[in-house]
């Protein structure tokens, strides 16, 4: 019953959306002052309808209504209530409904904030955005309807993949989607600004907020996914250059470039075309991210069940949007204000453009690494994968140069700075950083060509960004974000250099010696929970002057029958100690893996700092 309610509500939203697209096309730019309240009314109704269908899906999940196919495929009566709720968006159909929900809500927020924008701009943004909404509604209704009915309906559902039954993964998709969907507003509004000839300060200030919002959510969303992979997948790493991870990183590079170049547009009235191109690209990447993940084209170990026809629909939709935006770009190119402004070599504009160049480079590397296997398979049928060495080899040397620019860039002034001057304190700092790095690398016996300069320049960036807090001329949000980035790079590098690992196959009662430490498999007990059985091991690692006790877990879920390992991680500000064990065979052997990972916590803290800078900027009063 409720199920049908949601279905009809979604259908009604679809027809309303068709009406809205037509209505907005003939609105004549809100010339009549009565039209705006009417449009707001219609958009609210549309948003309400989508909320109704989302809530009815939520109810179907909570009540375990297995007459609904989506619920049947992804839920089970014995599942805890929290995961019944998160199961709503833990699957393809529900997650698209969530996309749609965020789209309609964001559009309402946009129109409420649009009073100071030109009417034509508002009208066009709404139109473009409504076209996207219509596309998504069509996509959901025709290829992935969350309200398909099963008859006769089964008594029990198939269950949610246990690996997704996790608190962090419950909030990871909504946060990531908030970022993705935010880029759609940037896209629509950029095209609208181009057509309506209103690329001006007012528009820039408004769009900057949306860029910040998307960027903050995307940053946090990526971090949550990474944290989840770290403790749930049992590999102990936090980034695997897996295609599914890469597709979320690509729009991030683009947004970060946009975040910087929009400042040039705001302050110096330059880079109009570039900002537009970036806006379009960012959205295209967000959309194709959804496409690649959902289509099953990506050869990823993360890929969940999927259906190629869906991917084709998104691909066609995306291509149409891209063609339209490219046509619009060339037809209305004359609206881009062309001002002859000379840029001096040593100026903030140039350093920001340099930042953009690097972002585009990193983006191209990740893009090629992600899609090359797909192309090769289509071309000659050979199946390949591209591993971390590809990315490391290409990114490392450029990262060194990038970090140099990042260290000195922010303190360079707009328009034209003084002639290049030698600052002795800077050189002193650089020498200290390189020496520090040299000592660490030599001590570790590492002899990589790039290690010393990379680590050295990271220290240098760290010192520089710490020093920046003493300066008055820069804004706080930027200082925090850049400082966070310095910590991120530094902790990733040190973590990579200092991590230690030991793995072995052990039986209960076994003992292993490694690195002056003793690992003992002390105990194994069984516990029963409502939807899984748990094997809890007790391991002790005895070092020279400390003793660590771990209680890792192996969970055997009954529905669907799946085994997962829950690592036990002992965390502090210095290092993480990570222990995970796995069933090998019935003969009593367990596969045990212990990892010592320094500065792990700082990787997460630094990402929080990076986004905190963005949040501060969002609420900065001076920005109006």
């Amino acid at each position: 019953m409720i199920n049908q309610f949601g279905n009809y509500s979604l259908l009604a939203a679809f027809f309303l959306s068709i009406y809205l697209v037509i209505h907005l096309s003939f609105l004549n730019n809100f010339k009549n002052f009565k039209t705006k309240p009417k449009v707001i009314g219609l958009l609210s109704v549309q948003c309400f309808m989508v909320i109704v269908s989302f809530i009815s899906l939520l109810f179907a999940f909570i009540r375990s209504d297995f007459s609904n196919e989506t619920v049947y495929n992804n839920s089970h009566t014995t599942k805890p209530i929290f995961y019944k709720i998160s199961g709503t968006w833990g699957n393809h159909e529900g997650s698209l409904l969530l996309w749609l929900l965020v789209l309609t809500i964001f559009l309402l927020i946009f129109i409420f904030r649009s009073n100071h924008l030109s009417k034509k701009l508002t009208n066009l943004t709404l139109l473009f955005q409504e076209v996207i909404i219509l596309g998504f509604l069509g996509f959901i209704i025709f290829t992935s309807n969350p309200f398909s009915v099963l008859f006769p309906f089964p008594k029990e559902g198939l269950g949610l993949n246990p690996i997704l039954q996790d608190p962090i993964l419950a909030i990871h998709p909504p946060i990531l989607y908030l970022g993705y969907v935010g880029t759609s507003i940037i896209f629509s509004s950029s095209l609208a600004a181009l057509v309506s000839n209103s690329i001006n300060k007012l528009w820039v200030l408004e769009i900057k907020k949306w860029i910040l919002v998307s960027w903050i959510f995307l940053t946090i969303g990526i971090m949550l996914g990474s944290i989840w992979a770290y403790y749930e997948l049992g590999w102990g790493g936090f980034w695997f250059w897996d295609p599914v991870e890469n597709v979320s990183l690509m729009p991030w590079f683009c947004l970060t470039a946009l975040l910087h170049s929009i400042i040039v547009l705001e302050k110096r009235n330059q880079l109009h075309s570039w900002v537009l191109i970036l806006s379009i690209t960012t959205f295209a990447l967000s959309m194709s991210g959804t496409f690649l993940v959902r289509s099953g084209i990506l050869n990823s170990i993360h890929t969940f069940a999927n259906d190629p026809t869906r991917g084709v629909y998104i691909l066609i939709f995306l291509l149409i949007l891209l063609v339209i935006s490219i046509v619009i770009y060339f037809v209305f190119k004359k609206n881009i204000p062309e001002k002859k402004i000379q840029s001096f070599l040593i100026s903030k504009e140039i350093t920001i453009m340099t930042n953009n160049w690097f972002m585009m480079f990193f983006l191209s590397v990740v893009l090629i690494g992600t899609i090359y296997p797909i192309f090769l398979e289509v071309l000659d049928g050979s199946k390949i994968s591209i591993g971390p060495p590809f990315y490391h080899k290409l990114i490392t040397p450029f990262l060194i140069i990038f970090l140099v620019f990042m260290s000195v860039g922010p303190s360079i002034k707009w328009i034209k700075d003084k002639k290049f001057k030698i600052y002795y304190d800077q050189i002193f700092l650089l020498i200290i950083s390189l020496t520090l790095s040299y000592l660490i690398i030599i001590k570790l016996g590492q002899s990589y060509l790039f290690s010393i300069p990379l680590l050295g320049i990271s220290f240098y960036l760290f010192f520089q960004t710490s020093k920046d807090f003493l300066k008055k001329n820069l804004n706080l949000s930027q200082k925090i974000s850049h400082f966070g980035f310095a910590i991120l790079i530094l902790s990733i590098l040190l973590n990579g250099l200092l991590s230690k690992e030991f793995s072995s196959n052990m039986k209960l009662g076994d003992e292993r010696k490694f690195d002056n430490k003793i690992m003992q498999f002390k105990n194994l007990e069984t516990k029963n929970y409502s939807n899984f059985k748990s094997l809890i091991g007790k391991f002790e690692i005895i070092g020279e002057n400390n003793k660590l006790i771990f209680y890792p877990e192996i969970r055997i879920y009954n529905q669907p029958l799946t085994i997962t390992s829950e690592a036990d991680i002992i965390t502090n500000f210095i290092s993480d100690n990570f222990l995970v064990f796995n069933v090998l065979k019935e003969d009593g052997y367990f596969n045990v893996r212990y990892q010592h990972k320094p500065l792990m916590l700082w990787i997460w803290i630094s990402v929080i700092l990076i986004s905190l800078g963005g949040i501060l900027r969002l609420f900065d009063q001076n920005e109006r």
Partner: protein
Amino acid sequence: MYGKKVKLRALFIFLIFTSLSLTSYLIFKSLEENVVYFKSPSDVKNLTVIKNKKIRVGGMVKLNSVNVSEDQIFFIITDFKNDLIVNFKGSVPNLFEEGKGVVAEGFLNDNNYFRAVKILAKHDENYMPPEVNQALKNN
């Protein structure tokens, strides 16, 4: 002679062009070196030259083939036509089990013996890597 502006523009275009070509050269060179090919046990059997290059082998873990010692795991990957003996040191993913799909990454000693450095994880008990699916279909 050309004006200063023209020269500057030419320099600018030249810089963009060089950086673009350098970038693509680097990317494609690195791509060539770091590509990991996927093979089935039958593909491995038919290899005439054994290169010391990392590859991935996928198939099913043969029933009753897993043999565990303190620091190593031996098992056989099969595509029901040909078998490949795999030796592995390290940690295995949750769903490593006899009779289930597996992808191993590592180096070939010869046509019958594979030294794995990594066993890949999967998330889903029904999920089969597309390559394994394809390899099994082909046979």
